[in-house]
């Protein structure tokens, strides 16, 4: 068992770290305060090639491994969790399913621009009445000649209105229930495809979350992803991979929180000494470190399993559930270490705590993750 990163992995990790520190850090506070999704910065992140890390060269990528890409999500998220999730959605939720289920033409047409950094992606599954109960889709796609006509809406879509390519799920055969869902590739600008309001959220202010609205959107039948009725399977397997990205995002947020807590605890003097000399605080930090390291190992292991083509669904769910849960704990504790100051917006930890919460919810709530894990463990083995 090798616990060291390879040279290539270290290099990409270092590159992502430098990008985050040089390009994202200077404006993070302002962008969080003013809820700015900075298209220019996203463009720079894409142009630097982070989207293409683990995409094959044949489709414009750098042919790197999956862990390298996860390291990039982690590093970006330490500074700007919004950028981290934008990257994760681009690669895991948009390019990912096309790579797994798409035709050669679809891969060249839609994966290449994402890999080469000119396009941003999004994934539209969730609806107002279909969250965890994803099978109850109300968005409908009807085949008419050469096109599917899609009507309906999606909610809480990351990169919504900014993305160029959207994986959208719709019901093609209501009678078949789960098996009546199909996946489609939509492009921004298709007539009838519009965007609803931008969600005002508790945190994640540097990423954009909107509604997608479909009014008689004509989608060429070449844009069906996979086969009709494969939609639900595509959604689930895509989310399996996507949750490693979310786990990495949560990990990055937790790591940042711990670093701030360590720094502050050494600077803050009470009773004539730094608060880090009090066991109460020192032990809090020790616990943060234990949780973060454990999360890190879960995340990296899930990434390595996926990279090796081995089953990784249970491990990805464990990584996502654990990393997001400890991110919430670590950021809460970090605010505690900062005391009153931690509650104010002058200090960074309240932002991290607000940002951590969503990682326990999206791409499958942690309850769903536990369903996946327990399902795998309790299933009768034949």
């Amino acid at each position, binding site marked *: 068992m090798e616990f060291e990163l390879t*040279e*290539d992995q270290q*290099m*990409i990790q270092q*590159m992502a770290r430098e*990008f985050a520190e*040089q*390009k994202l850090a200077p404006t993070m506070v302002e962008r969080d305060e003013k809820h700015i999704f900075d298209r220019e910065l996203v463009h*720079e992140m894409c*142009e*630097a*090639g*982070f989207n*293409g*890390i683990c995409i094959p060269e044949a489709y414009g990528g*750098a*042919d*790197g491994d999956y862990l390298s890409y996860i390291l990039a999500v982690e590093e970006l998220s330490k500074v700007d969790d919004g950028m981290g999730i934008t990257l994760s959605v681009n690669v895991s939720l948009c390019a990912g399913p096309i790579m797994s289920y798409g035709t050669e033409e679809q891969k060249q047409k839609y994966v290449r621009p994402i890999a080469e950094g000119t396009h941003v992606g999004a994934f539209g599954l969730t609806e107002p009445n279909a969250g965890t109960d994803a099978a109850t889709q109300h968005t409908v796609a009807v085949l008419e000649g050469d096109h599917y006509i899609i009507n309906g809406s999606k909610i809480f879509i990351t990169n919504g209105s900014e993305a160029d390519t959207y994986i959208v799920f719709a019901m093609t055969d209501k009678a078949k229930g789960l098996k009546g869902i199909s996946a489609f590739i939509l492009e921004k600008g298709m007539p009838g495809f519009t965007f609803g309001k931008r969600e005002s959220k508790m945190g994640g202010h540097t990423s954009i979350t909107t509604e997608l609205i479909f009014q008689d959107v004509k989608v060429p039948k070449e844009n069906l992803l996979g086969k009709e009725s494969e939609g639900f399977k595509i959604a689930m397997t895509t989310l399996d991979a996507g949750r490693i990205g979310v786990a990495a995002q949560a990990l990055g947020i937790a790591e940042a929180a711990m670093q701030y807590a360590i720094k502050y605890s050494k600077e803050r003097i009470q009773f004539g000494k730094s608060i880090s000399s009090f066991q109460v605080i020192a032990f809090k930090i020790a616990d943060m470190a234990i949780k973060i390291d454990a999360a890190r190992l879960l995340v990296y292991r899930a990434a390595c399993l996926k990279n090796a083509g081995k089953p990784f669904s249970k491990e990805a769910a464990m990584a996502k559930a654990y990393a997001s849960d400890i991110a919430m704990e670590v950021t809460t504790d970090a605010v505690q270490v900062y005391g009153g100051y931690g509650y104010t917006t002058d200090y960074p930890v309240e932002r991290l705590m607000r940002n951590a919460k969503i990682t326990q919810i999206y791409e499958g709530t942690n309850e769903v993750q536990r369903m996946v894990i327990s399902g795998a463990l309790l299933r009768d083995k034949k």
Partner: protein
Amino acid sequence: MEIVVCIKQVPDTTEVKIDPVTNTLIRQGVPSIVNPFDKNALEAALQLKDKYGAKVTVISMGPPQAKAALKDCLSMGADTAILVSDRAFGGADTLATSNVLAASIKKIGKVDVIFCGKQAIDGDTAQVGPETAEHLGIAQVTYVANMDIKDDLVTVERECEDGYEVIEVKLPVLVSVIKSAAFEPRFPTVKGKMKANRTEIAVWSAADVNADEKKIGLVGSPTKVSKIFTPPRRVQGIIIEEPTVKESIAALLDKLAEAKIIL
């Protein structure tokens, strides 16, 4: 178009600290980087490559670890990298260094533009660029903030103390650049980094570049370092923080008048 960019690997001197007790330099933990002005120079070269399709070669005279700096440059988009390295180059001052670089550039062949950064942040001399241009017998422009090329005519904006000159010069020319908005260095790409990592950097010795052994290294250096010392530290002076701004200002001006400064 053939372009050469001269670069140097330097310690990040803005990270260097002085030990307060011994008053000596603390070198440990100071990262080695590509000299920042050389990155501006490389950016200038890459912009010409983007616009007119040029071949960009980065070259450095240095010890083996300078390969890391050359790889950084490859990851930004340079086409080829060459390390000129030889024990005989050790102890070189700027004249000896420029002799080696000139010999190396002659070996590369016909070159249209040579880019250099204004100065290295460790030596701080700003001499190697002009001296190299002289050895090669080509024109030079220094303190360049912006440039463009049409056919074989180069137009530059050259910074002066209170403005800038617009200068035209025909190729070939050596251009020494400053940090300007036009030459903000681009971030490397993932593909660039991975490719650079796998690249074998060519290493040229003194013999490979036909360097005159009397003109290189310590032997070829007319200047010699006689002494190195740390300058006396500036000590913190008087900080004034009276209850009101008015009082602070009055206190400050009283002190200045006392010391006969300004008043």
